[in-house]
């Protein structure tokens, strides 16, 4: 628990003193009830830190749940759409989970720490749903959100910096692997995961070690041009890398009020996460029916002509509006204008030629632009170093 000298509505994270000291922009946002910086000094430079050196992002507000007990694996297998049995110990898996109607409630990562020991990181608070899911299972759920502080350390020089910090042999860690170290006499967990599509790690310590971790990381990383990054820079990186985000690219199904505004995994391009060979998981029968009868929407990645981000654009096929954009950014590294769109079926097949209706303003002058775009197969940014083991030195 982080305490404050007075009653405040947004909570500070365990890194707050350090974050605040480096947040030159003083530009703050509200991430799930925590004060987090939108930008530290310059969004573009922060972005380039991720791609060229190392960017550090405070991800402590993520919700973390420990799931233990004899039925922990069976419990998670019933809850999420992917097959958790295939996840080895000290491995991490991306997962989505649905309600009974097969509509996505949230996405997150599952860390397998032992045979009967998992950690689930979710975007949403999930205490109620996780508790309801325990009916019939011998599991214990513990909310560890305030017991763990986390930093995403992302970029080409991240492995080198963390090795200097004491993570010996970290270069041997495969993508989605977990390694355990000691920091200041306390456990420190490092996973080769992230939200940037680059070589990168997430580092987890107890809140008591948070400030020391930050200090030493920046100390060791100074020569490797380590920089703190805010949520705006991270957003650019994740769009470039092809990651969707809850509340942006879909609305968690339990928060949706209006009929038909939820999305299934198929409608979010996540069919690869749905394993029908499992006899039971939440939403299975609804998703089987959707598979047989067809989906309403298709998630599409668009490569748009020009350099004006197609934020909130309508997507047209001829004169007809066939969808809208949920995320859009000019992606500096791949030098492409990328957008994610939800398109009505049957539109959005790879190679489909569509038009984005983009509005932009210069000095109170609005311009409407019809930019041709094309549905692409996957993210354009996909560097080798993201997958290489040993991690290449920089």
């Amino acid at each position, binding site marked *: 628990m982080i305490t404050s000298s007075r009653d405040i509505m947004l909570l500070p994270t365990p890194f707050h003193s350090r974050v605040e000291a480096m947040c030159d922009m003083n530009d703050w946002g509200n991430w799930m009830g925590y004060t987090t910086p939108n930008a530290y000094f310059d969004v573009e430079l922060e972005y380039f830190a991720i791609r060229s050196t190392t960017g550090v992002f405070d991800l402590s507000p993520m919700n973390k749940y420990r799931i233990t007990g004899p039925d922990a694996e069976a419990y998670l297998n019933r809850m999420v759409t992917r097959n958790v049995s295939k996840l080895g110990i000290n491995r991490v898996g991306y997962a989505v989970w649905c309600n009974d109607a097969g509509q996505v409630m949230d996405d997150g990562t599952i860390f397998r720490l032992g045979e009967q020991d998992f950690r689930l990181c979710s975007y949403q608070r999930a205490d109620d749903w996780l508790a309801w899911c325990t009916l*019939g299972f011998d599991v214990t759920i513990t909310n560890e959100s305030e017991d763990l502080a986390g930093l995403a350390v992302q970029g080409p020089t991240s492995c080198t910096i963390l090795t200097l910090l004491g993570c010996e042999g970290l270069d041997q860690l495969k993508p989605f692997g977990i390694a355990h170290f000691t920091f200041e006499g306390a456990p420190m967990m490092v996973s080769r995961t992230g939200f940037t599509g680059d070589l990168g790690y997430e580092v987890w310590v107890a809140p008591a070690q948070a400030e020391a971790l930050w200090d030493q990381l920046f100390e060791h990383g100074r020569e490797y041009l380590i920089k703190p990054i805010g949520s705006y820079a991270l957003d650019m990186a994740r769009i470039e890398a092809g990651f969707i985000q809850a509340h942006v690219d879909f609305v968690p199904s339990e928060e949706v009020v209006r009929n038909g505004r939820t999305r299934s995994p198929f409608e979010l391009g996540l069919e690869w996460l749905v394993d029908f060979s499992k*006899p039971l998981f939440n939403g299975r029968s609804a998703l089987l029916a959707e598979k047989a009868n067809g989906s309403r929407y298709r998630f599409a990645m668009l490569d748009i002509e020009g350099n004006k981000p197609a934020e909130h654009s309508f997507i047209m096929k001829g004169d007809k509006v066939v969808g809208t954009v949920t995320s859009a950014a000019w992606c500096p590294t791949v030098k492409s204008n990328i957008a994610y769109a939800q398109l009505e079926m049957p539109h959005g097949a790879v190679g489909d030629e569509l038009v984005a209706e983009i509005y932009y303003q210069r000095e109170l002058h609005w311009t409407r632009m019809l930019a041709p775009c094309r549905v692409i197969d996957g993210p354009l940014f996909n560097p080798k170093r993201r997958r290489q083991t040993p991690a290449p030195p920089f």
Partner: protein
Amino acid sequence: MTDYDAIIIGAGHNGLICGSYLAKAGQRVLILDARDQAGGCASTREVAPGFRMSDCAQWLYQFDDAIVRDLGLEAAGLKVGARKRTVALQADGDHLSIDGDFLRGAGIGTKDQAAFQAFREQMDVFGKLMLKLYRGRAPKLVDANWPDRLTLMKLGLGLKLMGKTNMQDLMRIVLINIYDVMNENFDHEGLKAALALDAITGTNMGPRSPNTVYTYLHRALGNQLQSKGVVQVMGGMGALGDVLQKVAETHGATVRLSSTVQAIVKEGDRVCGVTLSDGTTLQAKAVISSADPTTTFRDLLGYQHLETGTARRAAQYRTRSGTAKLHLALSDLPAFSGLDTAALSQRLVIAPTMDAIESAFNPMKYAECGPKQVFDISIPSIEDPSLAPSGQHVLTALVHYLPFAPKGGWEGQRQAVLDNLIEQLEAYAPGIKGQIVASELLVPPDFEAAYGMTGGNWHHGELSIDQALMMRPFPGSTQYKTTIDGLFLCGAGAHPGGSLMGLPGRNAAKEMIKQGAFA
């Protein structure tokens, strides 16, 4: 190749009826029951040597004629007695007799007599519509298909055809409580209480609880059937179970008793059979559970085999009950003040006022056994002497309200509660205490243990609007289907609910045949 087309869990009346209809339609049916006697709650038990009593249900209120006809139950030996009057016992011995539309005694006035006739007429109008709704699957409101839309249109038309006043009255009262409705209609306290007792029998509700108009209508449905009221089954209620077993077997179903189903077995994503407690696994195209929904989903299938939403709904399904049963073996016919032998063979009710019923209900809410209960008494050995040794008698009584789990547990206070109940009877039947050869009190946990009814609830789950009709037992598992392929419901936990109607079993069979469940 599966062993059977259908395995039915539970040889209660609904299981047997469902099995009979399916076997009649040519399916290979196996009906399993843990008990050594078929019939479930339609059961007769020798409580003391030579004294046989209806162990659970004691009255037939609303057993559907259509089933009697379809399955030829009379030819198979089902005998019911004459229609009973309800005699509402009054403290001064001037009792109120309710006989069809007519009221007598207890100083009943012409105003109440007229009001009663008007009330009965209106209940008949409502009952007719309800019976239509009860004799088929309840239509879904969301995702309704054409048959459901047709049912809804007929229901709407039926409402319209009742006339404006009746329709408005039905809409107005269906969600409120019987206490207010009785006060609206009648002045006589004894009359109000006797009618209100019908609304709370087998429930966890008092007369002032919402939903009790719905449960009253559920009960009053019997007036639309041939029996037009309450009857006793000759041979005790178990005779109904025996006849239904015989009929099921005649139609080709196999009834296997003393066979406890331990688990419902899934293969992949569908149910494929059951495992018995002796380890045998039996396979079928469909498993149909007449066990209550909690037993079915929690104990036999396991919540871990359901999607979370369904598991939650099953876990929240309400199954409390305040109904207990008093069994007395008597050396002689008891002498109730002011009643002759003919009157003694009727349905006797001790519920002086609605407030008395509500006062009996109040302590139960706090897991306490109150000082006074209300009684619904049968002395079936007068009409059916075979139930007791010559010249001797049996008395059974439904008693409201006693909690499922009283503070301090049942064992320490069972005898005291039993003695208190007998003391309460003594006030109306002086000397009955001296006639008692054997006595027994069955409380809700006893019914749970003996008949597998979770919470001891006679309806297999509270029959309230939120758990009735298109929401019975809960959304997603209606129309006799569950969320899992191959698993169906045919017990009182399915539409239209409990109290020896037989309709859940009949409707389930018809629906499954129509939907091609055995294809």
